[in-house]
């Protein structure tokens, strides 16, 4: 009934006040590039989820084609070239001239071996001479492989960034809210972690922690929390003495309630941006770690472990694996970074 009363009143109804999130969403929708990037990232997430659910990229480990089967378009070109060449020299098919028995020292053995082989029925494995996007050394479909890699990379990025933000936010909130001794201790802890380059810390952790997907996520999050810590700490110092916190204090709210129910929602937009920044960074880190052999193990595939196979392939002229990884990875990372930029602009409360 209240709405009716409002409408009947003489004063114009005030515009409905929008939350920061609604405003941010509207600004993001107006930002055409940012919105397009959102769609691209969403597409990758759907792909990763589909792969995770077993709908796509399931057969990445099946050897369905010949070794280094070329992409179909290359194969067809080659086919045409061969056909054209053979059309020129018509009918002069060279006949294989086998050696005569008296000239061949192992004639008897060869004949026996042939007869012996005929006893066994070999299951005929049909291997594709070409695949739409090519195959790797073991004849595995590169499209399936790169989709599987997408899901690995995205889950490493997602869970790593999530864990990292949670660690950073919890420590930053404690340092900023309690101050004094807690702050001193946590700042010392922070300075210890930042005194070492990330890559060094990552390798040191990887050296002792063994290999595998879980380890990579843990190691990445343990090395990447300081940025979030710094940000959250500063915001908590700023917000802890505001009126709304004092009000919560007056009605007897506990420290954890003030920290996580009252203050934290005010910086959740910063955490979202931080999360998406971290995710891009961790995806890139995982690629380097896996390339160096300290990332995912052999039962998994990631963009980094795919890239690790590339240098040898290139020397033999097989470039398709490189092309697939670069295409997938750069599209996702570019879209993600641009989305992060747009997100930062859209969620900035100072922008009207």
């Amino acid at each position, binding site marked *: 009934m209240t709405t009716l009363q409002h409408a009947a009143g003489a004063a114009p109804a005030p515009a409905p006040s929008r939350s920061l999130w609604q405003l941010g969403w509207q600004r993001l929708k107006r930002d055409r590039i940012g919105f397009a990037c959102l769609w691209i990232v969403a597409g990758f997430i759907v792909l990763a989820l589909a792969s995770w659910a077993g709908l796509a990229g399931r057969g990445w480990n099946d050897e369905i084609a010949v070794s280094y089967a070329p992409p179909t378009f290359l194969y067809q070109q080659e086919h045409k070239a061969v056909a054209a060449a053979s059309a020129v020299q018509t009918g002069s098919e060279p006949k294989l001239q086998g050696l005569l028995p008296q000239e061949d020292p192992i004639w008897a053995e060869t004949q026996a071996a042939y007869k012996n082989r005929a006893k066994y029925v070999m299951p005929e494995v049909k291997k594709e001479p070409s695949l739409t996007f090519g195959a790797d050394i073991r004849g595995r479909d590169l499209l399936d492989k790169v989709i599987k890699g997408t899901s690995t990379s995205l889950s490493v990025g997602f869970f790593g960034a999530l864990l990292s933000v949670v660690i950073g936010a919890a420590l930053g909130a404690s340092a900023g809210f309690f101050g004094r001794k807690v702050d001193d201790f946590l700042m010392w802890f922070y300075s210890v972690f930042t*005194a070492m380059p990330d890559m060094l810390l990552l390798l*040191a952790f990887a050296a002792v922690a063994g290999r595998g997907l879980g380890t990579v996520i843990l190691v990445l999050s343990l090395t990447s929390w300081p940025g979030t810590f710094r940000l959250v700490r500063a915001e908590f110092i700023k917000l802890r003495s505001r009126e709304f916190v004092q009000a919560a204090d007056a009605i007897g709210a506990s420290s954890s309630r003030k920290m996580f129910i009252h203050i934290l929602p005010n910086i959740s937009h910063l955490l979202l941006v931080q999360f998406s920044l971290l995710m891009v960074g961790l995806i890139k880190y995982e*690629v380097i770690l896996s390339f160096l052999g*300290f990332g995912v193990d052999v039962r998994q595939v990631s963009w980094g472990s795919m890239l690790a196979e590339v240098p040898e392939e*290139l020397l033999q002229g097989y470039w398709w694996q490189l092309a697939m990884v670069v295409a997938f990875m750069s599209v996702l990372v570019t879209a993600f970074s641009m989305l992060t930029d747009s997100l930062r602009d859209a969620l900035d409360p100072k922008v009207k």
Partner: protein
Amino acid sequence: MIAYFIRRLWQMIPTMLGVMLLVFVLFNWVGGDPTFILEGKRLTPEIMANIRVQLGLDKSLPEQFLLFVKQVLTYDFGNSWATQQSVSATLANRVGPSVILAGSLLLLELLTALPIAVAVAYFRGSLTDRLVTMICTVAMSVSSLVYIIVGQYQLAFAWDLFPVMGWDDNSAVANLLVYLPLPLLLGLLVALAPSVRFYRSFVVEELNHDYVRTARAKGLSEPKVLFKHVLRNALIPVVTNITMSLPFLMLGSMLLERFFGIPGMGNELLNAVDKSDFPVIKAITITIAAAAMVFNLLADLLYKQIDPRVQLK
């Protein structure tokens, strides 16, 4: 200034202790029993006890930590588990190539990224600016690995413009002229995009200040405004960026060192991690952390030199 310097040095001690504690916990507690790594399968109780005594593992944890502190203070980390050679001597040989590579890379990057950033910032909002920013974003999202893999294959192997890899231990000239150009070129390609973006944002910010308008109103030429006035003020973030990135650069060029067979710290670290060579990893970690702290302090001292308004507290 001197009081500040001494105080900062004093403050480094707890951080350094923390780093040592972290490394100690990591390798002694998480890392598992090193006797297994060292001797593998042919392990008898006698050999095990012998190794434990040699490594000091029979002592209590605080005693072991003190031993580690002593190692750090004397910079004597014992022998490498993989090569049985003195860790400190090995690292002393590795610092040179890393410094040459990282130093020249930094210099080149500065000489190219800064002018580009200033030029782009000057035309901010224009199509050129947006195009360059866009290209930088895209260039940054291609993994540095890809630049190195493709660059090494195409430029060195396929076109034979550079040697594929190598390093001359005896001749610095050969290194600079023959072996370094390609790693430097590729390193520059990797580093350029993020640097241009980073520097651009600071120059843009400086351009909005009043003193720029004043300088223009005085009738100074644009290059003078840009390079003498604006750049000087944008120099603080630049110096921070450089000094902060110096120790990191050493590891950042790790991939370059590995691909081009340059015997530097990064390459050594990768080998050590591969072989679980804990003494070497510990030594490199401590060295780089100490270097990072020293460079941080240098950065703060440099601020004062660049900008007299900065108060050192």
